[in-house]
Each structure stands twice: as C-alpha cells, then as structure tokens.
C-alpha cells in the first residue's frame, strides 16, 4: 500500500526532512531513551557480570541466569516467588475483574439511584496509599486487637475467624484479596466507560427482542466490551507481576510466614538490596529483574499477538 504523502513533504530535500523528523521526534526519543531504554539495557548488562569480595566486576555471560534457575539455593525461592506471583495474579483475575465487570454492569443500568456515590465510594481505596491500606488491613485482621474477629462474632460466625495473614496457607490469598479490595475500582471504571459507549438504541432493540437486563448484559453488552476486558486483564497482569509494595508494607521483605507470600517483587528486593542476614547482590538482582521483564514481555506479547488480534473493536 502506498503511503499517502503530502506534496510539501515529497518535494522536501532529504536533509531538511530528516532535520524536521529529529525536531518533532527527538525530544520524546531522548527522554524515553534516557529514562526507559538505557536503564533497561544497563540492567540486562549488569546481569551478565559478577562481583568478587573486593567489589570488582567480572563478565560471566549467562552464568547468573543458570544459577538463578538451576542452583537450588537460588532456584527454590525463585520458583516459589514465581508460583506465588501466578496465584496472586489468578486471584485478581478470578475475583477483582469479574466483580469490577459486575459493578460496572450494575452502574450502567437505567434508574439506579446514588450512582455517583457508589462510583466514588468504590473507587476511593484506589486513591489511598498502599502503605496505609496495608497497615489498616494488618490492624483489621490482627487476631490480638483487630475488629475482624469481633465483627464475625457479632453475626455468629466467630468460629470462622483465623489469623489469615499469619497462616502459610492463607497469607498470600488474603494479601491478594486486600489488593483486590483496593483496586477493584479500576476495572469498574474502565468497563463502565466502555458500557456507556454502547448506544441506547441497541439496548432498546434488545428489549424489544425480549431480553431482560441480565441477558442484555450477557449477550449484548459484554461481547461489545470484550476489548476493554482484555485491556484490563493485561493491565492486571503487568501490575501483579510488578507488585511489591503491599506485601512489603504488610509482611516486610521476608514475605512471611516462611516465604508463603513471597512474590517476584519482594524476591528481587531481597536479592538486590539484601535484607537482614542476606547480603545485597546487584548482579544477581539484575538477573532477577531481567527475568521479571521477560515474564511480563511474554505475557504482553501473548495478549497483543494472540488475544487482541482475535478481538474486534466495534464502532457504533
């Protein structure tokens, strides 16, 4: 296909054209290179070195990655963190996004009162600092002075209470649910905006066709907002595999109990900066960061080339 080109551009001397390109694209390329591309390449480069006790760097090729993935001292915590991260992501996909979609569907129904109040209230936690959210939930769920146990007792469910954040079996899921509680407003807002885009006449046509509110949502609205749901999923994926702050603020860098809530972010933090008895190791840390980058890259590429290509955006 021939590129459409204006007469002005076509008759321009090549040097002048390149100078114009540099003028328009230069600033953003410079900023992007300085703050995104350079650190990324520098990190990858650092991952191919190692340091001795004197602090001297030596090139070792891919040896750090072999150590990370094959040496059980490194690989066991790495795979533990990677697996936990996958569970963390799965909880978000299974709980946060369906609830976000359902809330958006409810908000888009005609004749709902206090719509903007609900919208604001549900979105509010997203605007809070993760540290404050983590601290608050730590207090709420504390078996010593938390309100959770008393609240459950008051409705006769006191027996259900357990120190969820302290048990290896439940700590990770509990943290994931806290994160869901905080961020459910984001999928809700994005999908709500997409739902508002669907013309009223389409919904009217479905009502004349005999569909009730639920079927209209399921058969008409949901298929039309699938592209937005895909976008929400990939944002969730990227956010979850970069997560760190909530675990760190609730459980510290050791991500206890017994690394039950350790995810790649906290694993990276301990590796790179060191924590308590563990010494910081910048080159191994860079290797972990590089692996995290590739995990996210693979996930996003899967979305872009496999999922998004099969989905169609509808113009109304």
């Amino acid at each position: 296909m021939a590129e459409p080109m204006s007469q002005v551009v076509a008759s321009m001397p090549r040097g002048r054209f390149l100078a114009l390109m540099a003028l328009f694209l230069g600033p953003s390329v410079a900023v992007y290179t300085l703050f995104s591309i350079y650190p990324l390449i520098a990190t990858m480069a650092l991952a191919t070195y190692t340091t001795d006790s004197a602090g001297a760097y030596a090139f070792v090729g891919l040896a750090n990655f072999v150590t990370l993935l094959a040496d059980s001292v490194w690989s066991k915590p790495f795979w533990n963190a990677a697996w936990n991260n996958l569970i963390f992501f799965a909880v978000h996909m299974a709980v946060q996004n369906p609830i976000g979609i359902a809330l958006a569907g409810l908000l888009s129904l005609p004749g709902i009162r206090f719509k903007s109040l609900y919208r604001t209230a549900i979105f509010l936690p997203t605007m809070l600092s993760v540290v404050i959210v983590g601290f608050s939930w730590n207090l709420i769920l504390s078996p010593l002075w938390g309100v959770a146990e008393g609240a459950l007792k008051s409705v006769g469910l006191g027996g259900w209470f357990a120190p969820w954040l302290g048990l290896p079996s439940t700590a990770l899921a509990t943290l994931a649910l806290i994160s869901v509680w905080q961020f459910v407003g984001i999928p809700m807002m994005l999908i709500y905006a997409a739902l508002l885009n669907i013309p009223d006449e389409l919904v009217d046509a479905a009502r004349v066709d005999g569909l009730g509110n639920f079927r209209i949502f399921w058969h008409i609205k949901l298929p039309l907002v699938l592209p937005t749901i895909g976008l929400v999923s990939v944002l969730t994926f990227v956010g979850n595999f970069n997560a760190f702050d909530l675990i760190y603020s609730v459980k510290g860098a050791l991500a206890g109990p017994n690394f039950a809530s350790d995810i790649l972010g906290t694993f990276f933090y301990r590796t790179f900066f060191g924590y308590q008895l563990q010494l910081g190791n910048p080159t191994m840390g860079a290797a972990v960061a590089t692996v995290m980058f590739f995990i996210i890259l693979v996930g996003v590429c899967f979305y872009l080339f496999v999922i998004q290509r099969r989905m169609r955006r509808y113009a109304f």
Partner: protein
Amino acid sequence: MAKLHIDALNKSYGETKVLVDVDLAIEDGEFLVLVGPSGCGKSTLLRMIAGLDAPTSGDIYIAERKVNALAPAERRIAMVFQSYALYPHMDVLKNMTFGLKFTGVPAAERERRVAEAARMLRLEPLLKRYPRDLSGGQRQRVAIGRAIVREPDVFLFDEPLSNLDAALRVSTRVEIARLHRLLKATMVYVTHDQIEAMTLADRIVVMNQGRIEQVGKPLDLYYEPANLFVAGFIGSPAMNFFTGRVERIEGGEALVTGPCIGSVAVPAATFSPGDDLTLGVRPEHLGQGAGAFSTSGMVELVERLGEASFAHVRRADDRLMVAEIRGRDTPAPGESVTLSAPAQDIHVFDARGRRLAATPVNSA
C-alpha cells in the same frame, strides 16, 4: 395485525409535559404517520407504544388488549430504529433470529420466517455478512427484516430513513410502502419529513408541543388544515399568512382588510365585524396578475427547480412570501410583482388560529 388504541395518554418528566392527553385510534392494517417538529413528542409516543417508556397516565391497547404493564416483547410489536440498532457482533442471520430464540420460536419456524423475510427484502446474499460490511441501505433492510420475522401485530418505525442519503431515502421509502401493501400490517411511523409522511401514510397525525394538532388523510391535511400550525407545517414551501380584520359583513361575504392585502371578500362564517383573522395562501395558488385576493411586493430571490420556480417576495409588512411560478417566464430579483389567488384557495383562520369551516376549498 391489530387495532391500536391510545386513551388519554400523558407523559411528563417533572414539570415538563412531553405528551398531553393524547387520544388515537389506529385501524387494523393502517399506515399511520406521526409527524411534527423535533421535540413535539412523536418519538416519545412511539416509545410508549413499544413499551420502552412508561406513560405517566393513560392506557394503550393493542388488539383490544391493555398493554401498559407488558414488556416490549409481550406486546407483539416490532420496532425499526433510526440508527438501525443491529447487533454489531452478530451476522445478519443471527441478528434476525436472535430475538426469536428468546421468545420460544422453534428452530424450523425461525428458518422459515428468515427465509421468507430475506426473500421479501432481497437479503439472501447478505445473511452471513456482519453489519459493519453492509451499506446504510442494506443495514436498514436488515433492521426491517428483523422486525418482519417477529410477525408482530404492529410495526413501529422511528425515523428509519433519516440516516440514509437522499437517493436511498426515496428507494427505501418505496420499499416500505411495498412492504405495507404486502404484509397488510398495522404500522406506526415517526418522521419529521413531511414528504415521507405524505407519501406513506393512510392517515397523518400532526403533533406539536405534546398535543395532536390534527389527524387526517394526507390530502385532507393539505387542503383542509385544521389550524395555523398544520397549515404552516404541511406543504413545502410553507403556506403564506396574511393578517387582516373583518371590516363588514354583507350578502354572505365578509370584507377583510389588512396591511398587505388591501381588501378582500371571503365567505362569511362565524365571525363578526372587528374580528382579527389570518388568511393563508399556498405558494402554488399565488399567480401573477389580478384575482379575488391580491398582494404585491418586490422579488428578492428566485429559486429555479425546473418544474417550477419559487419567487421569494418582500411584502409591505417586511415579511417574505413565496409564490410558485411555472414555466420559463420568471420575474427577476428587484422586480415589483403583483400576486393574486382565486377566492376558493384562501384559507381563513380565526384569531386563535383555528380554521373557519365555512370556507369552500378546492380539494378536488
């Protein structure tokens, strides 16, 4: 196929009254067109018949059955929307059968109905296509097909042609008229286009500000408009209006004088000397030369359409009037002209805008 009956229907949003005491009876198989300026309540009325909006008060009967509390799908209606409202993620076939699935029509019956509608609307080659691959006219045919397969008692059309270009609008209009003859179905059709109204309707309902101004056959509305609003709304270019006052009544005739009309004799009716009147004359009835009714002014603009030309003439009261002039001999801008009309083509309205019935009209 069914009668449709609307009884004292009102709709208001808070203080705003959208419909005021609308009564309407639509015969079995009738093609009724609701026409009026935007905001007159015609679409709201249609949506209430469909069950998409609830009336504030009043009743709607379809086939002698009160449908106020019924959902749209239970009213045995089908609706065609202005934007077509096809489901973008379903092909044409699925668009047409989708609603039937939910109303419990068996698969074999669905196939039969779609085949019939597709043949009627020449949709067969399009059945596997998606709405995005169709032209505007094809989409509108699919939307009509989706209505036909429902086999409804009443078809409702909400400005179905306004998104089409001029040529398609004419051909789709003919198509809808043909379908009506073929299906013999009751149809209610909303438009703001009076040509659509005149060409399609068995009867036209002219609405204004939530009220029905007049219901009647197209030519009855044209020749015997019930009031000033209908007189001005039906017909293009619009009827020319002249104000006047009854001077005296003698011998069955009233002598009316006014700023632009000198004095003119109209048949006496239920008015008395001193009454204010409005006289209306359609552009096609204004000719050059002398006549019972005569007025003059300066030509400002001549629009030549071919079969006729419209002369826009500035009158003594500084308003414009339009005269339709046939033939090649048109006045030039700047020229002074005297226009006249025969007595039987003068419409007389009283001070409240109502037509005075005694006026004989040329409705032949």
